[in-house]
Each structure stands twice: as structure tokens, then as C-alpha cells.
């Protein structure tokens, strides 16, 4: 429906073969609540499923508060004190992460799955040097590494992200915002993980730096064979570098497909609205269409489809019953009543 022309020429790397690549992360029907003493639990994520394959970059898209970060934190079991994973499985190389003890989880964290937090500015300890903090990431999982190897590795990582190795003994406050983000990326790669979760890595950075960082992520992914989950609210970015897209709304999966299908054949009204809300440079005269209304309150959810209050194609059934997920193709799912065959 939308003509985003850039799809074919989007990147220099070949499109991924989703069929043949092995699945390394299988998130199945995960639900996460936030409990509080005086109120009913807030259902932050409900019945969410997706897969991640080797070398795949998944774009996780949605408004603020739709549960993207909560979902990511759940994978690493880093939720705040009020968070509860109330159902589901998270299979990493066929082992359910939710069955692990805390010690087992600590082993997986960073070494196999690492995360670059939103607002990495404050995610670094201000009284320790950057080099020191990167070293810690390695030493925790590989305690026998020689001092020589450590130093070499730190230098290598910093060079990889475009920070001179001579800056490793500086403190975070001596780095610019963009540099700190890149330092976080370097640190996230320190143990050669299989999966890197990048939670809105470019918020609060200016546009030039944004582009640099995203290009860096993409190049690194192809060079190192990483899988990446890129959490963002920027559909343009997703079009550029992602292989698959998961669109979330109000804690549920609205649409989940390969990137071509999302852009060329979006089936969920929310996805369609999102695409319309993004300006297309090839059609400068089109009006920007904002999506009216506000995201739902997670502890006072409407009984039916979460998007019903704001959906332009809403009908009666939408307010009563939550839609099932409909499989529209081998890699395309959407949760909307419009799709029921009858």
C-alpha cells in the first residue's frame, strides 16, 4: 500500500534467508505484569511471541510505553522489583532461560546476550574509566584472560567503534554523548555475544551521529555474524537495516513480519497508520497524518482489542473481544479482527 521506494536499494548486504537460518532465540507467549501494593497489576506485555535467527536484525517498533523495553528486559531477567514474568518460555538455543537459576542467568548475561540501554549516558559508572569497565565485562566471564590479551581486546573494541584506543583511561564525563553510546556498543561486544539488544540506541543524539551509530551496528552485525534486536520508534531506520519487524501496541503484538511485507503489505491498521505518519521524501506534498488519541493505560485496559479506541477501521467486535493472531504468510502475522476469513 505504501510506496517506500528504498526497499530494494536499502542496504549493500544481501537480504537474509529467513527460511534457512537457524533459530537461536524463540520467545513464546510471554506475558509480563507489574504488580503494586494498591492497584491491580498492569499488564505490560501479553502473550508475545517472536523468533530471532542467526545473523538476523529484528526491528521492534512501537510507541513509548508499549512494552518494548519491558520485553527486552524480560529476556535478560532484568526487570525492576515490581516486574513479574507470569507466563511463557524464552528458549535460547533450546534452553528455556526462565528455568535458569540466577547464577545460570549471570553466566548467559553479556557473554551470550548483551544489551545497550536506552540513555547510555548514565549507564556507565562515572568514577571508573571506560577501559576499566570494558575490562570488567570480559573478566567476569573469562577470568583467566591475560593482562596482555585484555589490553589488546579493549583496544580492538574501541577501534572497532571508532574511538581511539588512547582514550581508554578516560572517564565517561570526558566523552561526548555519541562517544559514550559507542563505548557502550564496544562494551556490549566485548564477550562476542550471539545476540545484542539495542534499546533505542540513538535517542537524544543528533541526526548525523544517529546515522553513524546505526551504520556501525549494521556493519558490525554483518562482520561478526551477530543477531540484533533493534528497539526503536523510527520506521525509517527499520526499513534501512532490519530483516524482520515486530510492531507492538499496548503490550501485544500487532504485526510481525519480514521487512518487505511490513512495508509493502501492512495488514494491521496500526502499522498502516504508522507508515502514513512517517514522511516519505519522494512524496513531499503528502500530508503527515498523526494517529489521534493516546496509548492505553496498562492497568485499566479496554476489554477488546487494545487499539480499538484509536482505530479508524474499528467495528463492534473490536470492543468486545481481543483478536487472535492470524498467520498471513510464512513470516507474516497480524492480530486484527479484520483478518478473520469470515
Amino acid at each position, binding site marked *: 500500500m505504501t510506496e517506500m521506494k528504498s526497499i530494494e536499494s536499502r542496504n549493500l548486504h544481501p537480504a537474509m534467508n529467513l527460511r534457512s537460518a537457524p533459530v537461536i532465540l524463540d520467545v513464546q507467549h510471554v506475558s509480563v505484569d507489574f504488580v503494586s501494593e494498591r492497584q491491580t497489576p498492569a499488564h505490560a506485555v501479553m502473550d508475545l511471541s517472536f523468533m530471532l535467527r542467526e545473523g538476523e536484525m529484528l526491528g521492534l517498533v512501537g510507541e513509548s510505553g508499549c512494552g518494548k523495553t519491558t520485553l527486552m528486559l524480560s529476556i535478560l531477567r532484568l526487570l525492576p522489583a515490581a516486574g513479574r514474568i507470569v507466563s511463557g518460555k524464552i528458549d535460547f538455543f533450546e534452553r528455556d532461560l526462565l528455568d535458569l537459576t540466577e547464577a545460570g542467568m*549471570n553466566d548467559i548475561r553479556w557473554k551470550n546476550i548483551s544489551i545497550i540501554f536506552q540513555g547510555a549516558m548514565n*549507564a556507565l559508572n*562515572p568514577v*571508573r574509566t571506560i577501559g576499566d569497565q570494558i575490562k570488567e565485562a570480559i573478566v*567476569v566471564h573469562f577470568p583467566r584472560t591475560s593482562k596482555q590479551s585484555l589490553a589488546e581486546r579493549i583496544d580492538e573494541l574501541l577501534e572497532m567503534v571508532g574511538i581511539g584506543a588512547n582514550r581508554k583511561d578516560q*572517564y565517561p564525563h570526558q566523552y561526548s554523548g555519541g562517544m559514550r553510546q559507542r563505548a557502550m556498543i564496544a562494551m556490549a561486544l566485548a564477550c562476542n555475544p550471539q545476540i545484542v539488544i539495542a534499546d533505542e540506541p540513538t535517542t537524544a543524539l543528533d541526526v548525523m551521529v544517529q546515522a553513524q551509530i546505526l551504520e556501525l551496528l549494521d556493519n558490525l552485525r554483518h562482520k561478526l555474524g551477530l543477531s540484533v534486536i533493534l528497539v526503536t520508534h523510527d520506521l525509517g531506520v527499520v526499513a534501512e537495516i532490519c530483516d524482520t519487524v515486530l510492531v507492538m501496541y499496548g503490550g501485544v503484538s500487532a504485526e510481525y513480519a519480514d521487512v518487505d511485507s511490513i512495508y509493502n503489505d501492512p495488514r494491521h491498521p496500526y502499522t498502516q497508520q504508522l507508515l502514513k505518519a512517517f514522511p516519505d521524501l519522494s512524496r513531499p506534498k503528502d500530508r503527515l497524518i498523526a494517529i489521534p488519541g493516546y496509548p492505553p493505560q496498562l492497568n485499566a485496559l479496554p476489554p477488546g482489542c487494545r487499539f480499538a479506541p484509536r482505530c479508524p477501521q474499528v467495528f463492534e467486535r473490536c470492543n468486545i473481544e481481543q483478536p487472535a493472531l492470524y498467520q498471513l504468510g510464512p513470516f507474516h502475522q497480524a492480530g486484527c479482527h479484520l483478518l478473520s476469513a469470515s
Partner: protein
Amino acid sequence: MISGDKILMNYRYLLNKFAWALLTIIFVIVLNFFLFRVLPGDPARAGLRDPRLTVEAQEAIRARFGLDKPVINCFDSLNPLKIGNCAVNPLETQFFIYVSNLLRGELGISYHSNRPVVDILGERLWNTILLVSAGQILSIVIGISLGVVAAWKLRTMIDYGALVSSLVAWSLPTFWLGIILLFIGSRYFGLPIGGKMTPGAHFESTWEQWKDIARHLILPTITFTIIFIGEYMLIMRSTMVDVLSEDFILTAKAKGLHSIQILKDHALRNSMLPMVTIIALNLGFTVAGAIQIETVFSWPGLGQVFFEAVGRRDYPMLQGAFLILAISVIFANLAADLLYSYLDPRVRAG
């Protein structure tokens, strides 16, 4: 900890702190001078009439301290309604004499013991430092440890227990705790009833002497420790909870570190910074505590001599002791500022 990097002292910051400390000391000196002259019972005159001094001593004092000279330009007492002789040479006022004496280390002669104040203070200062150090170190170590544990185990029974004990300890009047401990200690544990050493005892060796002193130190030190534990624990707990809520702690968790590793390598360093400032601020309380504890335990330190001087109206002693006490606190604050700037790389590197 701060290994391998060049110490770029932030000179402007240091200069600022030094200047400020100097200014405060000057203020204290001026305050000290006027305080003892403004208050009723003009000490200079009172001192001159003090029957404990011989006539010669009185004359000497009068000459040395210029008590027959005007206090300060334009006034020969501090009563502003009396219009004095404004043509007085400022170099000949009592104030100037006082300051110049001060700079020479001359603090006057004690009315009570006829010895120079400086000498007496010098002896007593070390006793007080001995007393205070032991108590402070213990309470810092124990208080901080308790605070860390309480913060880590937030809202569990351990936390609540530590909180309640600390609040109770904070509410105890220092002198009363001392009295109670002294009562119990001397009656039931055979500990000394006061003083620094057993009076009239002869010691075979320095070691024996120190053992005796140590025995006399036990109760006062315990008192000091209990009083300050509460405060350090509460502040460390609060600081630690703040630090543990910061984003970089979540990063540390994401890296796979255990709680203890996180506490040790991340949280502790960051929360020690504010603690340093708090410890410095506490030095005012330490002085107050020292005065009370030395009085209760008859420990021959600055606090006790200060208090006795009050009772005896020994003004030179009082003035000298007050000055030393105030200046110690100022210096301690300055030291804490310097230490803080050394520890916090954000300040150090500018």
C-alpha cells in the same frame, strides 16, 4: 583505585576551598576576640582583678597584652555609645596585639594554672585525638558496614532492625550513655572510673603504661562508637539506596555480576564520596561529644579543659581552647574537601 592516570588537580577548585577555609578562620579569630570582650564581665578587667594572679603577673599581663590600650580603633570598650579617641594608632589596639600574639603562637597565660595556654592545650590535644580517633574509626567502619547491608537487604527484617537500632542510638544523649556505661562498667566489670591512667601507679614499661591507658579508653570509646554508629549507618544506607538505583548498576547486573561484586566494585566507591563529606561535617558533633565524654570520664583532653575553664572563668584558657576547637573543625572540613576532590574524577579532571 585511581591507578595509572595523571592527577590533574583542579587548581581553581582547591584554591577556592583554601581561600574559604582561611576566611572562616579569620572570622573565627575575630569572633573569638570580640566574644570574650562583648560579654558582660569584661575579661580583661576581670582578669586583672583576679586574685589568683600576683601583682607582678598582673603588670606583666597588662603590658604584654596591652590591656591598658584601646580595644580597637575609636572605642576603648565595645560600648558603641562611648565615643573614644579616634586618633588612636590602630597598631596599638588590643585587637592588633591579640592578632600579632596569635601569629606568634602566643595564647596567653591561664589564670588557673599560671602556665602558658599553648602548653596546656598542646598536651591535651593529643589526648583528645587519641580518644576521638578510636571511637570514630570504629563507628565509621561498623556504621558503614551496617548501612551497606541494610540498603542491600532493603525492607527486610535486617533493614528494619538496623534502622530502629540506629534511630535509638541517635536519640541517646552522649553524656547519659557515658554515665550509664560508666556505672555498669565500673560496678560490674571492674573498669576504671575515669581518667587516663590509674593515679599514682608505677609502670614497669611503656607497654604496661599503654595497657593501662587502653583500659581507661574502653568505656569512653564504646560510648563514642555507639553514639556515632547510628548516624553513619543511616546516612550510608540512604546514600547506598540512591546509588543502587542508578542506571549503571543495572548495566553491571546486565553484565552478569553478582550482587556482592556489584556492591564492591560499583556501589561502594560511588557512595563513599558523599560519606566523606558527611564524616567531615560530623566533626562538629565530634567536638561536642568529646566535651561531654571527657567530662563524664574525666579524660584529660581539650573538651575537659575547655569545660573546666568555663567553670573557673579562666578566660585566656577558654579563648585558646575555643580557638583550637573551632580551627580543628575547619581544618578537618578542608581536609575532607581535598579528599573528595581527589576521589571524584569529575572534580579532579575538571
